[in-house]
């Protein structure tokens, strides 16, 4: 995907020790991004788009972000209106607080609200599910209403749903995606969601300048 300047959008996938980064890298490259997996903060700051991935425990992800010193970079990009895409726990850490098994961990706080355990008979919420995006959504533009994305999580932001948030449901409604200007995030894994995920990532790349 080429931006207005005629070059491919430069995307940094933030490497802070969390999980499977290869999939995110490959899925973004597949849709035309110039992708680097890096813990270099200057690169993360300068990129057209920054992807914050994340799997596992909230506290471990925050510790990883702190270890590489990435928290100020994410906050600075959000404050400056520069594109950031959080994925899964990379979305959850954007909120103010995560509560897992009674362990309360401060998040980056660029989204208002808390991440808590879903009230559902079977957890993790694992597999392909539909979502309800708002009519004005950019990420979901062009995707049919019954499109399914791959989720694997037990926690989510539930109580602080904004009218513009994309709602998912497993036991109870939760934020499946948020789009606040240049800040975007998905609770599901677009990089593991086949063609539907590729479509969404293409939509996101198109917002990068």
């Amino acid at each position: 995907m080429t931006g207005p300047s005629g070059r491919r959008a430069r995307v940094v996938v933030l490497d802070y020790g969390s999980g499977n980064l290869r999939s995110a890298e490959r899925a973004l490259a597949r849709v035309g991004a110039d992708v680097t997996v890096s813990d270099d903060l200057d690169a993360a700051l300068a990129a057209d788009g920054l992807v914050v991935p994340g799997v596992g425990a909230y506290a471990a992800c925050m510790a990883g972000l702190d270890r590489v010193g990435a928290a100020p970079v994410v906050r600075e990009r959000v404050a400056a209106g520069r594109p950031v895409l959080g994925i899964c726990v990379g979305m959850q850490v954007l909120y103010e607080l995560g509560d897992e098994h009674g362990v309360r961990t401060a998040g980056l706080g660029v989204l208002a609200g808390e991440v808590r355990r879903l009230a559902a008979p079977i957890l993790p919420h694992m597999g392909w599910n539909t979502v309800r995006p708002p009519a004005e959504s950019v990420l979901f533009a062009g995707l049919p209403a019954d499109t399914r994305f791959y989720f694997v999580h037990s926690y989510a932001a539930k109580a602080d749903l904004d009218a513009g948030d994309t709602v998912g449901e497993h036991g109870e409604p939760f934020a499946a995606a948020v789009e606040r200007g240049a800040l975007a995030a998905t609770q599901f894994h677009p990089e593991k969601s086949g063609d539907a995920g590729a479509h969404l990532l293409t939509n996101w790349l198109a917002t990068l300048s």
Partner: protein
Amino acid sequence: MSVAVRVIPCLDVDGGRVVKGVNFTDLRDAGDPVEMARLYDAEGADELTFLDITASSGDRETTYDIVRRTAEQVFIPLTVGGGVRSADDVNRLLRAGADKVGINTAAVARPELVRECAHRFGNQCIVISVDARRCPDPAGPRFEVTTHGGRRGTGIDAVGWTSRVVELGAGEILLNSMDADGTRDGYDLEMISAVRAEVDVPVIASGGAGDLAHFAPAVGAGADAVLAASVFHFGQLRIGEVKAALRDTGVPVR
């Protein structure tokens, strides 16, 4: 809005090649796991499972390479199991591109491994694979955990075992009936029901699929996902047909 029941083909990999019942006509190389993974993805598989049945540890590098190459080309979740002995093994598979790792015998030998792995990597990526059979000993449990591909009984009650590994941090149970495995007579529905009643994590039904009519009852018994190997490899059933059959009975599928 409800999560779709997953249809999962399982590929047995030995020394870098898919073995056991590969009979695709539209593959250039029927034994290449990466190419088979791509084909299943194109057919609508919701996840893929690689079972590494390699005996020699020297061939493990080959497995990591396959996982790497698959993750580069296939954009659906990949579970890899077989021969996983330690948290470091799990780490290497995850770093190679696996999304979830299946642990079987090593968990039976040392249950604390489940806790260690769940703590280090998150429970969402720890799948405990249980090979269970109906217990031949009337004094024993109804379903018994086996190891070594079903050849060795342990005397451990399979239902209680699944409950225990979930407490230790397992994020999913891959429940394989050693009695039904290979028979194509259908899943062991009683075993699925018994485990479903005990655990609150997703349960993957495995062993016995042979007919389109076999899948919906497994879901009815409580399975969140249905896994099959030979019926897919031999081209006897296609992923799309299984999904259509499930959809016809009102089961949500992708």
